[in-house]
Every structure is written in C-alpha cells, then in structure tokens.
C-alpha cells in the first residue's frame, strides 16, 4: 500500500465537506431519534449534550445546540472558525503551541495545525495510570477525545459529496459503474452502489497483473482508494440508523458504520438515502426538502414496532431541555432571596409577599422539572448524584415553606422559613447546575441500581434525611447570625422560634436518615447478601444518624441549648456533605457506581469555611457574654438580663 495514497485518502476527507452555512430552520430535526449512551434520545438532547461536551456551553454564540449540530453534520466548514472547543487549562494551549484565548475556547481551524502534536501528547498522557495523571494530562486526553468525536461527526455525511479522490475519467468505466456521463468527480456513495464491480476488478487484478488496460488500471486504483476510505471511516456517536440485528433486538449504527460494508449498506440503503437527501437539502438551503427528508425518517422510526423505540416522551424531553426548569427555578430563588433580604431590612409587607410568590413560582418550575424527569426516565426522581441535588433542594424548600406557614403572622419568626427555602434553592441548584454542565444528566443506570422499588424507598428516605439535616443547618446559621447581630442578644425571644425550627427539622432529619439507612441495609441484604458491611457510604449515613442522635440526646438532657444546637446543626451540615459526596471521593467499597474524582478541593473549602464560621461564632458569643458580664459588674443583674447574656441558660 502506497503511503502517499493513504495520505491522500485521509487528508482529502475534510476539505470535501466544505459547504456554505445554510440558513434554514432545523426544527424538524429536534425530535429525530438518536441512540446515545444506551438511551434513545431526541436529537435536541443529543445536540445539547455534545455541545456541552465540546464547549461547556449550551449555545454557540447565536446558534442553538441543534443548529450547531446541524452545521457540524451537514456543513462542517461553516463552523470550523467558531470557538467550539473548551480547553480549561492554558498550559494545554501552550503545549499545543497556540495562543491562549481569554475565553478558553478555540476553533477547530486553530487546533488543526496542532493535531499531530496533540496526538503525541495524548499518547504520553495515556501511558500514565489514571490515578497518577495530572490535570494537564487529563485535559489533553479530554480535548483529544472531543476532537476525535468532532472529526467523526463532521465526516458523518462526507460519503454523499463528490470528492476529487473519486475521479472516473474513462467513459467505459462510468458506464460500467452506472455513473452519470457528464461528470468525472463522484462521491463515495455513488461508487458504493456498484462496489461489487470494483471488488471484481481488484480480484482479477491479483490474478492477472500483466497486460492491464487503462480502464482496468483506473478501476483498480479506484477500488484501492475505496478500500482505504472504508478503513479510514470513523464511527461517530451519531447513531441514527436502527438495525434489526436479531429477532426483537434493535441495534443502532452511525451512517459511517452503515456505509462501511456491503451488508449493512444494503440494509440501510433507504435510511441512508433519506439522510443524504436531508444533508443535500440543508447544504442547498432547501427548507422544504430538508423538512420532508427528516420527516420521512422520523415517520419510519416511529413506525418500527420495537419496545426500544419508545419515543412518546420526546416532546416532553424537548420541552424540558428548552425550558431548562431548574435554571429558571434557580433564577427565581435568587430573586426570592434578594426580596427576602430586602424584607428583613425594610420590613415591607409587599417585599415579603413578593419573595413568597417568587419562591413558589420557582418551586413550580423546580417540581415541574422533577416530574418531567420521572416521566422521561420512568424511574424515581433520585438515581444519580446530580439528581440528588434538585431533590434535596425541593424537599428542604417544601419543609422550609411548611415552617413558614406554621410561623405565618408571627413577627418574631416571619420570613425565616422563606429565607431558608430560597437559600437552599440557590445553593443546591447552583451545585446541580455545575454538575449539569458536564453533559447529559438523563443517564441510564448500572445493573445494581436498576430497581425502582429501592430507588423510591431507600434513596428517597436518605435524601429526605439529607434535606432535613441541611435545612436544620441553614436554620442553625440563621440562629447564629441573628444571635451575633448587634442588639439581637437583648431580645432572646426572637431566637426561640428559630431554635424550635432547628430542633424540629433535626428530629425530622434523624427519622428519615435512620429509616433511609436501615432501608439501605435491607437493600444491601437483598442485593449483596449482607445487611451491614461498614462500607464508606453506609458509614457516611450512619455518621449522620449518630450525630443527630448525639445532638438530640444532649439537648434532651440539657447539655446543649440554643447556641449548642445551632453550632451542632451547622456541623451536621458538614457531616451530611461528607456522607453525600465526600465518601464518593474515597473510591473504596461496594458503592463504586457513585465514585467520583472531582470536587475534593471545593468540599474541603466548604468544610474549612464552616469550621471557621463555627469558631468565629463561638468566639463572638463568648465575647458578647464577656462584655455583658463586664457591664453586669457595674449594675446588679436582673433575672432577665442573665438569660439574655447567656443564651445557654434558656432552653430555646
């Protein structure tokens, strides 16, 4: 095999895809079915996932994810100069010899000259065991993976375009291959239609190399180029072609996989034709032709009688992706939080009402998003770390709003529940938002988690336990802030209702954390054959239970009161954070499906900040009581002032 021939085939691929940026609407494409990561998704979800994976964003300038994907697939040249690829680490850009961009996003045209260098660096990085790779190495591998995927996607429909490497000059060959007479450049697709003639030519050539005619020489050369082209085709994740592999079993292939062999080519000819028409119509700016071709494909998939082809949820999923309910809820919680702060400062009723209604509006989006996910995935709301954040947020917000309802109209505690609700919404949905930026969050489950019964009992109970403990922690913070505010210490009655809320939510947390832990034990007994194994995840849950029990018993026997409970619940929030995702960082035990490697720094930062806050609060309370004690020496204390000075003396 001549290297120059191979080089021609490999390098000639991308330039042939040149095409003008089409100005057509791709609405009809959004519900096309794609099999991606084990799940049949609408094209809209797939496009969002890929764009997030490439650029960490859900839009590319003015282009939506779907429009971007359409350009990558049908007219890749039109997107080559757009900043599509996120490179987080500037050292990677340096290593590739490209100027670091402020926004850390690079166009394919910028990266193309450095592809060989990137490949070399990636191979070096891949030789290092995963647990010893540094951030730069990991980033190099990530960027390399994205570029490979991009190139595969950009080459998806290359087979339909005429290419100079597929040149048939001799009329007798054009006639033999049933190609139109008026052109000499053809597409891979044109030639694959009569690949058997090329295969025969190649076979005959092996048997008889002497006395080769010019026509035979051209056919043999063409056959070799075709062979090399098939070898160089890169299967992409764009699995849009359903294939009945076995009775009752449907497999999905990408167009490049389908055109790679005569067997699949025959099976997929109608689908490939449909996609080819769509691609050509897109390139030509033919809106009607594009919609018609995509519509025909959607109808064909919709008519397949396979269990796997369940696309009834597609409209809801597209709506969910477009609405992005959690993001909207997050925005509304921010507004509610600001209005709540304003209410505490100005005490205007309208501010209180605004905050409440905005918070409720956020909750509607929030719960709507959760219900949509339940319907789409046909499983309970919490099945992954990402899903636990919105759920914990929703449960704690609901509980906080119940507390607000209980305290409605009471001047001393009005707004506390509302403040906690919006605060929990903002914090937890912001974290969820960060996780969502990593890609599609509607993931399939590993075998051991594939149990709707246990997901809806154990996981729900444990996460409700987390919610209540975190809410009690948030209330603990509020208690301490209020106790440290100037002038507040002289009004202990203002702290008492918050203390009651702290106690109530902690009891609630203990109840659900305990039941969730025990149900987890029963699931482990059903699944692994032992109720308890001191696994880190189990221990994390037990830590919450033990801490809550310790705190409640200490309060019951009078060892801690208001400040102790508030500090204890702040610490409880730390324990929850460790049990929730801290133990996942250890990468030990049977809960391997939850292991993660990122976020340790942020977690330790949070814990450090909380410990500092607790230390500061202790010091503040101590200083305050000291100052009061000093002033007490001047004037004999009354019974009331002692209770004010030492909040511990009163059971709040």
């Amino acid at each position, binding site marked *: 095999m001549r290297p120059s021939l191979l080089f021609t085939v490999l390098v000639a691929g991308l330039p042939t895809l040149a095409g003008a940026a089409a100005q057509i609407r791709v609405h009809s494409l959004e519900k096309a079915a794609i099999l991606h990561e084990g799940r049949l998704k609408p094209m809209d979800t797939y496009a969002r996932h890929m764009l997030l994976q490439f650029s960490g964003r859900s839009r590319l300038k003015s282009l939506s994810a779907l429009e971007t994907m359409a350009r990558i697939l049908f007219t890749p040249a039109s997107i080559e100069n757009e900043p599509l690829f996120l490179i987080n680490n500037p050292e990677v850009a340096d290593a590739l010899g490209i100027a670091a961009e402020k926004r850390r996003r690079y166009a394919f045209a910028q990266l193309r000259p450095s592809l060989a260098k990137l490949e070399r660096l990636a191979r070096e990085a891949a030789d290092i065991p995963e647990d010893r790779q540094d951030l730069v190495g990991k980033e190099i591998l990530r960027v390399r993976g994205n570029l490979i995927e991009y190139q595969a996607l950009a080459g998806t429909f290359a087979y339909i375009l005429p290419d100079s490497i597929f040149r048939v000059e001799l009329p007798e060959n054009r006639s033999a291959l049933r190609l139109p007479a008026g052109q000499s450049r053809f597409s891979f697709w044109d030639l694959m239609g009569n690949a058997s003639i090329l295969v025969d030519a190649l076979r005959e050539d092996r048997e008889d190399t002497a006395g080769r005619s010019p026509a035979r020489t051209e056919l043999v050369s063409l056959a070799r180029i075709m062979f090399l082209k098939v070898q160089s085709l890169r299967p992409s994740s764009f699995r849009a072609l359903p294939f009945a592999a076995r009775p009752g079993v449907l497999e999905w292939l990408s167009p490049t996989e389908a055109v790679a062999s005569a067997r699949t080519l025959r099976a997929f000819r109608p689908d490939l034709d449909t996609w080819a028409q769509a691609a050509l119509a897109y390139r030509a700016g033919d809106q009607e032709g594009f919609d018609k071709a995509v519509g025909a494909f959607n109808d064909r998939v919709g008519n397949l009688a396979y269990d796997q082809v369940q696309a009834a949820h597609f409209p809801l999923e597209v709506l969910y992706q477009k609405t992005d309910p959690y993001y909207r809820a997050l925005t509304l919680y921010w507004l509610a939080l600001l209005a709540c702060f304003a209410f505490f400062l100005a005490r205007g009723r309208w501010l209180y009402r605004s905050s409440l209604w905005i918070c409720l509006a956020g909750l509607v989006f929030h719960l709507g998003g959760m219900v949509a996910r339940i319907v789409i995935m046909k499983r309970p709301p919490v099945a992954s770390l990402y899903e636990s954040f919105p759920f914990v947020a929703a449960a704690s917000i609901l509980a906080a709003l119940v507390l607000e309802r209980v305290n409605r109209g009471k001047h001393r505690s009005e707004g506390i529940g509302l403040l906690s609700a919006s605060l929990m919404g903002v914090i937890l949905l912001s974290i969820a938002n960060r996780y969502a930026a990593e890609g599609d969050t509607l993931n399939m489950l590993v075998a051991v988690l594939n149990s709707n019964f246990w997901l809806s009992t154990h996981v729900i109970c444990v996460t409700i336990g987390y919610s209540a403990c975190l809410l009690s922690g948030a209330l603990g913070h509020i208690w301490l802030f209020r106790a440290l505010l100037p002038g507040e210490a002289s009004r202990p009655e203002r702290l008492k209702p918050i203390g009651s809320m702290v106690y109530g939510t902690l009891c609630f947390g203990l109840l659900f954390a305990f039941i969730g832990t025990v149900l987890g034990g029963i699931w482990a007994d059903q699944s692994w*054959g032992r109720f308890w194994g001191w696994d880190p995840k189990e221990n994390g849950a*037990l830590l919450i239970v033990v801490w809550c029990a310790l705190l409640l018993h200490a309060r019951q026997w009078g060892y801690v009161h208001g400040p102790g409970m508030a500090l204890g619940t702040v610490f409880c929030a730390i324990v929850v954070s460790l049990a929730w995702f801290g133990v996942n960082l250890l990468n030990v035990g049977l809960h391997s499906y939850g292991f993660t490697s990122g976020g340790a720094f942020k977690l330790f930062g949070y814990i450090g900040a909380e410990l500092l806050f607790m230390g500061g609060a202790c010091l503040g309370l101590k200083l305050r009581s000291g100052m009061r004690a000093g002033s007490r020496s001047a004037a004999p204390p009354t019974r009331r002032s002692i209770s004010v000075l030492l909040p511990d003396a009163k059971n709040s």
Partner: protein
Amino acid sequence: LIPRRSWRQSAANHPLAKAVRHPVVTLSALSILFALIFSGTLYQTEHGLYEAQKKFFGYGMVLVGGVFPLPSASVVIWILSIQLAATMVLVLPWKPSKLGLWLSHAGLLALLIGGFITQTRAVESRMTLAEGEEGHFTTAYQDWELAFWETRGDTNAVFAYDAISLPAGREIALSRYGCRLRLRLYYPNCDAFAGTAGNQPPFLNPSGVALIERRKPEKEAVENIPGILFTLAEAGKADREILLYGGEPRPLPLILQGRRVFCQLRLKHYPLDFSLKLTDFVKTVHPGTRVASSFASHAELKEGGSVRPVRIWMNNPLRYRGYTFFQSSYSQPEGAAEKSTFAVVTNPGRTLPYVSSLAVFAGLLLHFLLRFVPFLRREAP
C-alpha cells in the same frame, strides 16, 4: 412483663444502674462511635475494609490517630445496648404518650441484637459455576482449610482443619489413617517459588513448589494466599515433609495405610444438602454501550429426585433452606463458557433488621407526631 413501679424505682436508684444509664455515658459512647466510624472510614482507603473492620469495628481497643485509645465500635455498641435495655426496663415511663419511645428503643435493641447474631452466626460464602456446571458446595471468601479426602463411589469422604487453628508446632492425630501431622509453619499470605531444574525439592508438593516466602497481608483479605509446611509421620514409614500453597489447583495424592488420600490447602468448603446447576447466564447491556442493565442466572435446583428451574438476578436472590443465593458477579473466559458467581449467605438473624426497622420507624413517627401536634396547637396564632 413490665416490673412494678416500686421495684423499678428502687432498681433505678441503685448506684450501678445510675452509673450505667448516666447521660454522660450515652453521650460519650455516641461521640466515640462517631469518631470510630469517621476514622475507620478513612482508614479503609489505605488499608482496606478487612483491616478497618478488625481494627475499628471489632472488639478490643484502638488508637485513633495513633494517639487516642478508644474502645472499638462493637464494644461501644454493646455499651449502648446495655444502657438502652437498662433505660427501658428501669426508667422509661409506661404510658401511652411514651409508646413511640418504647417502640423505637425496643426496635433499636432488636437491631443491635440482630447485628450481634449476624456478626457471630452468619456465614458468607460464594459459588462460581460455569454454564452447564453443577455445584454441591460453596467456598469461603477468605477462610482457608487443610483438607484430606478419599473418594468413595460418587462421594468424597472429607475431613478438614481450619487453617486459622493451625499454629506452628501443633500436632494433629489423623487416627483414621494411623498417622500424625505436625505443623512446622503457616503463612497467612505468601509467594510460592518452583525449584530449579535438577534440584530435587526436599518437600512433597503437587505442582513443584519448593519454597514459600511470607509477605505482608494484602489490603483486601480475599487476596491473601496462604502456605503451609507440615510433617506427616506414619508408623513404620519415614516422615514426609509436605509443602502446600493455597494457589495450587491440584491436590497432593498420598497413600496412607494403603488408601489413596488427597490433601490440599484450599478455601473453606461448605457442603450443601442440595445442588445448583447453572443452565444459562444472561447479561443485558444498555443498547449501544457496554454498561450492563441486568445480570441473570438461569439454574436448576436439585434435591433428591426433584429438579426445579430457578432464576437469580440482581436484587432478586434465591432463598432456599436457610441459604440465600445472590447474583454477585460473572466472568467470560476466552473461548470458554460464561461463569456466574453467587454470594451465598446463611444468617439466622436476617429477619431482625426488618422487624426492628419497622418498629423504630413506627416508634419515631409516633413520638414525633405526639410532640408535633401539641406544638402546632401551641404555636397557632
């Protein structure tokens, strides 16, 4: 069953009872438990679960952080259990408003008792079968035995010694074969080396192992492979030095009093009264991925003359005659039949967690409701 008030009062005022149920004891025990769980969890990352369990969660003392001596978790849990029982019997008032507390504390006590039964009586083992293979016994995960057996028709007559009960120097009489066995060394984890060509090893061994070298226990105890060296003394014959390594697939054949006997250092076997034959193993993946969505083993349960088809899959074990078979893992050796591994457990206390968790849940719920309703009434504007 509730003791009379006067008796309870006098018992409750006894100094010992007071000391046992003193709040400081409870709070200290809970604090220590918290510290142990936290430290034990971190310890696992470096030393594995087995070592952490032995050190932090078993019986005895542990130096937390290498500095603070604390009782280990099982001791603390016992202290809490005794205290819980004492509080219930002596102090907890018997009135409807305390029903929730009674239920939850009784449930908690049952849970702790269940944990104790599991810790002392439960047996965990496994069974790996290739498709078409039939299993009559299960094997331990990490406990080893020195086994001798002879074949009689279709069955093996086996007698075995727990490896853990074989300290160096111990002598065992094999009266059935008229010989004695004297232990010279036992390594819980070791490497084995073959003898060099032409250099006849001084020990009897089925696979040519001539030397074993002790090594540090592995992070996971299941990865330890032991080795043993013993002398077999048979009347009227010269003593035989036998070296066995746990990683050897074949047993050592011996002739003892004219009978052919096999000897092997192997993972402990637990014979079953029935057998299980794996007919098919099915792994289903999420389409287009390698991520498994389910594993299922189709098997035949055989006992006497009866054969029953059974299916064991994730989260759906087979329970039969006190044994529970869980779908644990699988393997597909190249060019060979698929193999399915079951975790097999017998646990007389397995129902206690179910009953106790129900009692604790009902108790806590009742207690909080009994407290919450008056709270709502009191707080109503």
